């Protein structure tokens, strides 16, 4: 019989949450890639075909989805830089300061994207 897994309460600490965000954002971004490329590939059929698709994405739900992806991308970037620092850098410890910086970067990217939408 498989031994009991660690209780959920034992996972409640910043580095674990950073892992959860990194993994979930990674899954979402990986699955989004083919869709993204398929959409851009519409340019092969000319500017008209691409514009037809872009017009569809002006719906609020699409915009919200795009905003979410930008936040996830920034979070994955910040979290990933922290992992590279831990794995390749001379530091010790879990670099929780970088978790905070990554979170701030994701928020900043989200705000910048939202502001760019407002013209």
């Amino acid at each position, binding site marked *: 019989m498989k031994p009991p897994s660690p209780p959920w309460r034992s996972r409640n600490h910043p580095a674990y949450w950073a892992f959860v965000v990194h*993994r979930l954002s*990674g*899954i979402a*971004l*990986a699955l989004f*890639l*083919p869709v*993204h*490329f*398929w*959409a*851009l*590939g*519409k*340019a*092969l059929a000319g*500017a*008209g075909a*691409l*514009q037809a698709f*872009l017009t569809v994405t002006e719906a609020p739900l699409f915009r919200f989805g795009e905003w979410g992806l*930008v936040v996830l*991308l*920034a979070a*994955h*970037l910040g979290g*990933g*830089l922290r*992992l*590279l620092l831990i*794995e*390749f850098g001379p530091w010790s410890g879990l670099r929780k300061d970088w978790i905070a910086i990554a979170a701030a970067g994701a928020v900043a*990217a989200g705000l*910048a*994207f939202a502001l*760019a*939408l407002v*013209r």
Partner: protein
Amino acid sequence: MTGDDILLQARLWWWQRTSAMALAFCVLVHLGVIIYAVHAGLSAASLLGRTRGNVVFGAFYTLFVLACAIHAPIGLMNVAREWLGWRPRPVGWLAAAFALAIVVLGLRAVYGVVVA
């Protein structure tokens, strides 16, 4: 576990991390491009106006696509093994297929916005 497996696994880790270093740079630039493009009002004409015939743009996004094709499938392999409990061999083949799909679709998209 054979020695070849260990060698491959260690190398996959290495490739995922080195591609991550390239992606860190690419994503930073890409976020800037996204926010600039959206701020300028996203339209096919303005987008293609900036990208068509732009060699730097094409080279950058080719590198970006290739780094994604290395980085993402290795991450998904770990997820499939650890969270879905899939066997290593089918996971390896699926990841290879996913990598190929990203290369083909990605380079097709770059070709579409830069060359076509």
